């Protein structure tokens, strides 16, 4: 059903007339031209489409837009602030934590939500938190290093 939906997107109030049964991934990628969230499995198995909804990492391919009314959405495009990369982004660059980069947005945002909840995670907690995000290129070792570096650097101040 087409309806007007309001939410905050990367800090800005946003209003959109849209069929509210559609999945957030496609609305972001087409209606809103934010293509950082990727389509890969379409069924919630890989995490490439991850975005932040009210401080939680969600799989946007499984999230109907009607469920985000009034909520706060952050996509990879909105993580840097005033032209300064978020510490997680900086750490991913520093550790070369990507190869093809197709999983990278989802990795960074999943880690972001993880650190919001648990700013000083152990390695084991990071692994558990990231385990359902898939990467075919095998960047895992670097992703873990990057998340650890970011967590240390932020000293608990995770918010973008």
């Amino acid at each position, binding site marked *: 059903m087409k309806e007007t939906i309001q939410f905050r997107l990367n800090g800005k109030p946003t209003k959109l007339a849209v069929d509210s049964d*559609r*999945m957030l*991934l*496609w609305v972001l*990628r*087409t*209606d809103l*031209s*934010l*293509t*950082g*969230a*990727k*389509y*890969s*499995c*379409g*069924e919630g*198995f*890989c995490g*490439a489409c991850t975005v932040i909804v009210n401080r939680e990492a969600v799989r946007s391919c499984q999230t109907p837009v009607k469920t985000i009314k009034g909520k706060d959405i952050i*996509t*990879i*495009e909105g*993580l*840097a602030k005033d032209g300064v*990369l978020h510490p997680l*982004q900086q750490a*991913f*660059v*520093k550790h*070369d934590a*990507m*190869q*093809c*980069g*197709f*999983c*990278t*947005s989802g990795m*960074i945002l999943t880690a972001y939500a993880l650190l919001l909840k648990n700013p000083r995670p152990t390695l084991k907690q*990071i*692994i*558990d938190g*990231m*385990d*359902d*995000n*898939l*990467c*075919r*290129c*095998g*960047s*895992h*070792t*670097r*992703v*873990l290093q990057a998340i650890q570096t970011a967590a240390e650097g932020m000293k608990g101040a995770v918010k973008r």
Partner: protein
Amino acid sequence: MKKDANPDIVVDKAGAASSLSRREFLKVVGGGIFIFVTYGEELAFEEPARSQAARPSLPTDFNAFLRIGEDGRVTCFTGKIEQGQGAITALPQMLAEELEVPLSSVDIVLGDTDLCPWDAGTFGSQTIRSFGPALRGAAAEAREVLKELAAEKLNVPIDRLQAKDGAIFDKTRPQTRATYAELAQGKKIERHLTQKPALKTPAELKVMGQPQPRRDALKKVTGEAHYAGDLRLPGMLYARILRPPAHGAKLKDLDTSAAEKISGARVIRDGDLIAVLHEFPDEAERAMTLIKAQYDLPDATLDDKNIFDHLIKAAPEGRTVAQGGNLEEGAKLAAVSFDETYLNSYVAHATIETHTALVSVEGDKATAWASSQAPFGVRDEVAQAAGISAQNVHVISPFIGGGFGGKTRNTQAGQAARLSKTTGKPVQVTWSRADEFFNDTFRPAAVLKIKSGISNSGQIVFWDYEVLFAGERSSQQFYNIPHHRTVVRGEWGGGRGGGAPSAHPFSVGAWRAPASNSNTFARESQIDIMAAKAGMDPVEFRLMNLNNGRMQRIIKAAAEKFGWTPAKAPSGRGWGVASADYQGTYLTTMAEVAVDKAAGAVQVKRVVCAQDMGIAVNPEGATLQIEGCITMGLGYALTEEVHFKGREVKDLNFDTYQLPRFSWLPKIEAVLLDSPEVAISGGGEPPIITMGAVVANAIFDATGARLYQLPMTPERIKAALK
């Protein structure tokens, strides 16, 4: 979006779409100094001849070129692409090195068919090994041209001149200098690299061999890196393609009425291509689910269990690829003989990005952006599908979300071209994950038979190896064996570059390090079996049976890093070793595993990989590739296997097809050894090829159970433990 501009590269348009002579080409491009490069490359994909003949906008007598512009910037144009392997970083390093310019002043244009000369594609670790030296040569040549220009301009004899930091100066009076920009100003100079200019010696290298961060990292962490599916054109439509339930299924009945009721959905049937188009991709997908299609299923009985018997029966005549001595003599020398058969399963490429293409056909011209390892293949595919000349197709390569050999056929680009032609609009085709699994050119299943024997003192005396369907690469053993023969029956591409040879129920093709994963698994397992029987430590057994100093050195390097101490297997420690030679790169991998015998589960705890690739151009990049290969390799070692029945592919998403995860990660350590005396070779593939054997050997060391089939699933491990 401007059609002639890839957002990731900034260059001026080099020429109109027609085949130019080099002279005409130079007329249409701006000023500067041009060096044209030709290099021989193994045509791993048996490109049809027309591809090379029909280069569009460039002369035909070179494969790549570099330009020093009037602004002093250096640009390399090559048909290679970046799929995560780091060419975008390593190639500029090589250029900067020989040309004596800061790395920051080097641009690289990849995979644009109007700007870059023809190239077969990016695979087989060829980028650094084959193209690299040619590019370095071109840069060295350019440096000499600049010196000649400077000698004239500064009026200084050429032997007093030196190049540094993008300028040429007089060694005796360094203030007498001219920058490359000044020298290139108003010039139009061309050179075709014919004889090989002297490259720097390894000791002289300053930029190569230094770790460099990825050039594309910033774009990839901000979401600004654009892949084919991220591109938008005005008026474009998104398409989903109808997938049959099985390979060889024949469409009997089609009802698209419900799909067509979706507002804005358009169903197109063009021969065997049935697609739903919509201005929103998810609406196209929804409409697709409403299509009712009836099929006649093929009469097929093969499945993932009986396939191996079938392959043994279907194997074509053999080809002897290596032999020495006399096998009968060898057998007489053997105190103990071995006769083993190893099996390897079909595996999927499973790149996180599915095949995607955006194509806009306008009249007799087309522009295409595709996730492809072979942009010139896309060009031909689009031309054929749209019924236009290849010269009128411009392919621009966006970032590619992983390839591993799976993105060399360009079916999706052909589909988009047909649909664009029919609708008159730009069309983006994105394969669903299920389409991706179904249409994949899997790594072929293989049967590997080795008969071998050792003497009383543990010398390998004969080796009789028969390779069924894996392919030739890495099949030639490198041990010091007096009597040996290797026979290859069937190739990994079925001899048709990714086509479907009749022996397989679906298409097979190159998968990261084609053939080598299977061959290395068999060879290094057999070596371990013999070592155990001889009562020797598997590392000592290998060293004793080698007379190849470079290989011995890399084994010792791995052993030192790993802290290997000799013991006969099974020692209970869960340690394994495997060595390999891949296209000139030597490596040895050692691993430690823990096996939960009740569950049949394996945790790989630690992996050391020592690699000698001549010189690692970007050691940071090489280390990344080692980590990536080891992690990816755990998949085919432990879980990855395509299940199928009667030409129906059962694994269509990541719920049943299990990729390696964070919780599987071993501690990974890389050791890079240089061999400056040998040619530089690639590193994007070798470290994956030892993973099957090293884990199998470590499982044996932990438990005494020998696994003969990959992947080593819990069921197979439990069965082997019985």
